[in-house]
Each structure stands twice: as C-alpha cells, then as structure tokens.
C-alpha cells in the first residue's frame, strides 16, 4: 500500500482488552441468539458469524464513530461491534417493539444510523454500490468519513461487486471493501465456482488495487490492515479491497447444520478459533487471568440482561404496520 498517511497499526494492552471484550460479546450474543431459535423465540431465519468475530471487532476498533458500516444479512456482529447495545439487537430478532427497528427489519436488516450502521443487506452484492454512494457523499461534502463494506466470498461473482469496485476506483472513493472469505458460499465451496484462487484478492488488480489478504481470525492483524486501509481512504487515496480469511463454525443459516463440510476442515478451523487464540496472546502479553475472566463474566451478565429485556419487549401492532413507507411517516398512496 502506498498511503502517505499512516495510522497506528498496533494497540496497547488496554485497547486489546477492549478488542477481546468485543469478540467475546459477539460470540456470547450469537450463542444466545441460537439458543433462542431453538426455543422458538426467534422466528424466520438468521445467519450467525460465530468464528468470524475478529473481523468485525478488528475493523470496528479501527473506525471513527462517524464512519459507516455496511453489512450483510450476516450482520449481528458488525452491528454490535459498532456499539449498538445488545438489547435492541436481540429484541429485533424476537420481533419486539424495543427492537432496533421495532421488528420491521429482522435479523437480516439490522440498522442503527446513530451508530453508523447504515444497513444490513440481504441481496448478495447489493450494498457494495450503496457503500460507494455514502463514500461519494463524504467526498462531495468534504467530511473525512469512510464507508466500510463487509460481504462474503460468494459476493465476488455477482455483477454489483464488479460495478462497485470499478466505480469506487475511478472516483477514488473513501470506501473499504472487506471480503469475509469463509470458504463456503451456502452449500457450495467458493473455490469450485470461482475462476481465481483468492476470490477477492485476485480480482483487485482488475481495478488497479493492491491484492490484500489478512488472517481474519487474528483481531490484531485485522486491526492493522483495517487501520491502513481506512487511513488511505481518509487521505483521499481511494478504495481498498481486503480479503479476510476465516471460517463460520456453524452452517449458513438457521436451517443449515453445515454437514457438507469435511470434519477435518471444521476441526482445523475450530483450532484456529479467534477467541481462545486472542485470549492466549493476551495472557502472553501480560494480561491476567482474572482480567479476562472478569470480561467474560461481565459479558455473560450483559447477555442475560439483554435476553430478559428483549423477551419483555412489546408485540408490534397495527400502528407500526402502516408507518414509515414515506418520509412523512405514513403509507398513503392516494387521496
């Protein structure tokens, strides 16, 4: 990378403890979300990113409050990592009035504009051009905001990916595209249906961008690469495309136990679980066992509170049904 602006790419132990807390929170939240599916509190579908937390946490730590996140339907982690409290996210999954969108969006569309979470998009690739638009807006208005757009490896073969990459490159937009390569689309291995070995990184050259691959299961490595790319975008040097290698521990969605994956592969990636790995590193770097246990206990308690608060939320009524199709708050299409 040829950035003239540099950002710190390493952090101190205090910041690392925050990064650990974030990853643990994402993990414990989603484990609870899964339990609540099994208890039928969560209807519909949901896509967990258990195993991929280091990417969401590492990027969020590198972003300013005013920066924007664009996420996919697998967006719980990205939403929480930006500081959205657990209760409204969980309540949204439960379809309650205290949900982030009062139950109108659901698991796949988590959005919190006040936290810079500019939507979770459930059509593959669609949000890459939209992130370009936000970045264009920042460029036009002369703010230093950066749009960070997360997507899966399956997105690299859809047209919107290529339109967005070219568009961002020619307009030098302050956007960072992050491919979370978990090796599998839904039931099909991405490498079986992709012309290049590294689905995002090998496409970077086509848009005049550097090929960047990062260990997506290492929060420090993610933080470093994120900091550099965000600094480059903020300096007006244009977009970056980052491929973060990772693995989802579970299936694609609630309906998918993920049995199509070879046991040895799953075992190999479970051994590379970002959270125990980060925990061990923190101990090596001087954190105490007690500090880490305290974080884990506090997060567990937070999940309990969120669960109770979400369950206590109201059931949305007709007032919400017909609300906010239009900017005037209503849904009228005739006089």
């Amino acid at each position, binding site marked *: 990378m040829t950035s003239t602006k540099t950002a710190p790419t390493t952090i101190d132990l205090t910041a690392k403890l925050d990064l650990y807390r974030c990853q643990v929170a994402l993990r414990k939240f989603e484990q609870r979300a899964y339990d609540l599916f099994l208890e039928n509190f969560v209807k519909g579908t949901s896509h967990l990113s258990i195993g991929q937390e280091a990417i969401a946490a590492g990027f969020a730590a590198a972003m300013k409050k005013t920066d924007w996140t664009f996420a996919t339907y697998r967006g719980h982690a990205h939403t929480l990592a930006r500081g959205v409290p657990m209760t409204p996210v969980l309540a949204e999954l439960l379809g309650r009035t205290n949900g982030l*969108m009062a139950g109108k969006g659901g698991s796949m569309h988590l959005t919190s504009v006040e936290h810079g979470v500019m939507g979770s998009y459930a059509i593959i690739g669609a949000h890459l051009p*939209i992130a370009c638009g936000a970045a*264009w807006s920042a460029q036009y208005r002369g703010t230093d905001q950066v749009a960070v757009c997360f997507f899966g490896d399956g997105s690299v073969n859809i047209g*919107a990916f290529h339109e967005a990459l070219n568009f961002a490159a020619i307009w030098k937009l302050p956007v960072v595209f992050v491919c979370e390569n978990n090796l599998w689309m839904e039931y099909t291995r991405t490498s079986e249906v992709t012309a290049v070995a590294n689905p995002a990184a090998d496409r970077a050259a086509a848009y005049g961008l550097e090929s960047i691959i990062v260990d997506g299961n290492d929060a420090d490595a993610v933080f470093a690469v994120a900091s550099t790319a965000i600094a480059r975008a903020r300096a007006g040097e244009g977009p970056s495309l980052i491929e973060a290698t990772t693995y989802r521990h579970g299936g694609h969605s609630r309906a998918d136990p993920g049995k199509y994956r070879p046991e040895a592969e799953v075992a190999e990636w479970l051994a590379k679980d970002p959270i125990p790995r980060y925990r061990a590193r923190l101990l090596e770097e001087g954190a105490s066992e007690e500090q880490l246990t305290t974080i884990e206990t506090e997060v567990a308690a937070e999940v309990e509170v969120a669960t109770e608060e979400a369950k206590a939320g109201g059931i949305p009524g007709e007032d919400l049904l017909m609300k*906010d199709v*239009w*900017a005037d708050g209503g849904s009228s299409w005739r*006089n």
Partner: protein
Amino acid sequence: MAQLTFREAIARGIAQEMRLDESIVFLGEDIGAAGGVFKGTVGLLEEFGGVRVRDTPISEQAILGAAMGAAMTGLRPIAEIMFADFFAVCWDIVVNEIAKSRYMTNGQMTFPLVIRSGNGGGLRFGAQHSQSVENWAMMVPGLKVVVPSNALDVIGLMAASIRDNDPVIFLEEKALYSSKMDVPDGEIVDKLGSAKVLRQGGDATLVALGNMVPKALAAADELASSGIDCTVVDVRSLVPLDTATILREVAATGRMFTIEENPRLCGWGGEISSIVSEEAFYDLDGPIVRITTPHIPLPAADALEDMAIPSVERIATTVSKSMNS
C-alpha cells in the same frame, strides 16, 4: 414566456433546483459533456461543473446504489437511467433497497432522490428500448411514480420530485422529447399527486398518462366532431394517485376509458378501473374500457409499432363504438 421543448424543460427543471440547493448532485451515463443521449441535460455540466454533474460508467447498479448511499447520508441525488428498459439490470437496487429501506429501518433513513429515465415507444427502437415501465414501478410499495406529458409539467413536476423526501421514478416519454410549448419565465414548482383536467366534456372521461395524453386530446377533438364530448384527465403521477379528481370526473360523465401505453396485463388502468368500480360503480352508465398496447413485446418496424401503441384513431374508434353500442 418562451417556447420550450420537452427535452429543454428537463434541463431547466434540474437547473432551477440545483441553483437553490447545493446538496443536489446529478449522475448518469453521458449526462455531462454529451448533454444526455436525448439532449435532455445540455448545459448542466457547464453551469454546475463536474463535481455536481458526473458522468458514470455503464453500471446501472453502481449508479443507483451511489444515488441511494448519497441520499441516506444527506445529499439529494438525481440519477439517470438512460432507457427505462435498463431498469431491468438494476431493479434490485430500486425495489429491494431504495423502496424498502425506510420501512425496514423503522424510519431511520430517508431517500430524497429522483431517478429519471427515457420511457416508452414510438421511436422504432424495438423491444428492448421502447418499453413503458410505469406499471413496474407503480406496483412497488415505497416508490413515487411521475410521468409528465408536456414541457411545463416537466419543469414543475421535476422540481416537486427533487424537493420530495421520497424516491421518485421520473419517467420521460421519449416520443415527447421534441414536443414544444410556451412556458412562463421564473420558478415553476408543481405538486405530486395532482391530476389535471385538460378538457371538459359531458359524455365520457378519458384518463391518460404521458405520451397518451396528447393522443387522448386529439382523439377527443375527433370525437367532438361526431358529437361525443370527452373530458380528458392527465394522471401525471401514478403514486401518489389523485383518485379524487379521477372519481369526480368519471362520475360527471358516467363513462371511463383508460388510455395506456403499457402492455395490457397489470397496466395502471387496471388499478384505476378497480378503484372506480369499487367507489363509483353507481355513477357508471356503461362498462369501463381499457385501451392499451396489446400484451406483446414492442416490435421495431414503424408499421407494427404504430399498430401496437394506442393511436388517436384507435382511441377515437374504441370510444365511439363503445358509446354507440
């Protein structure tokens, strides 16, 4: 007062608003230096510069995604999709993203944006550059749909669309780009959701949109000479829909004919017919009749295209036959 073509009215309407509001930006293919493939945006690059008027690659998803992302973060973008047929390659952004995101986010986001597009047939461009897609847009909750029929309305409805805080699909009838009319000087701002009664008659009400409006007016002239006096209503916007004017004008004559360029099935006239039959059934003196393009792709040959799209003659004959039966 100056005589203005429909295409000149596009640029005038956009320029009027861009002068007032720095948050308005405009993007699309060939809109800048080229002045638009239909010459509807001539002069905008020169007046507002390349930062506000930006040419794009042929990437319709990128164009509309950019408009959406800009709108959700405080700009008021205008995007051009050159031919309305091309909505088919970026319909996801329109339907799944732009139209739904305010509702899905419980009102956290607003999308003050306008998507302009050349719509409709009559130019012998064949099936992929001639479609009337107003009914595609009308059926999607969350989109406003505006189709002006003359230069004056282009300016006023463009201004109203740009000032509106919701996404507006602004369809410009290609067959009307060279039509002219006298337009007053100064600021012109119209209102969405207001149909216009262009002619008043006691026998039948012709409800028309876009390029079908001048045809309905010409047919009404012909019918008048054979003793059938028609009211002509220009619908102007399908969403919001001015049902009050339509219901009132249909009740006054007891007969309604819809004049639609879109293919027959699920055309906008079907929805209006349904509203009229539910709410003005006892005011009707005869069947509602829909005059549409048949349910076929549009052919290229002039002879065939002229047969397909409702003509002045077909409108007059259909109305006359129905009124005399």
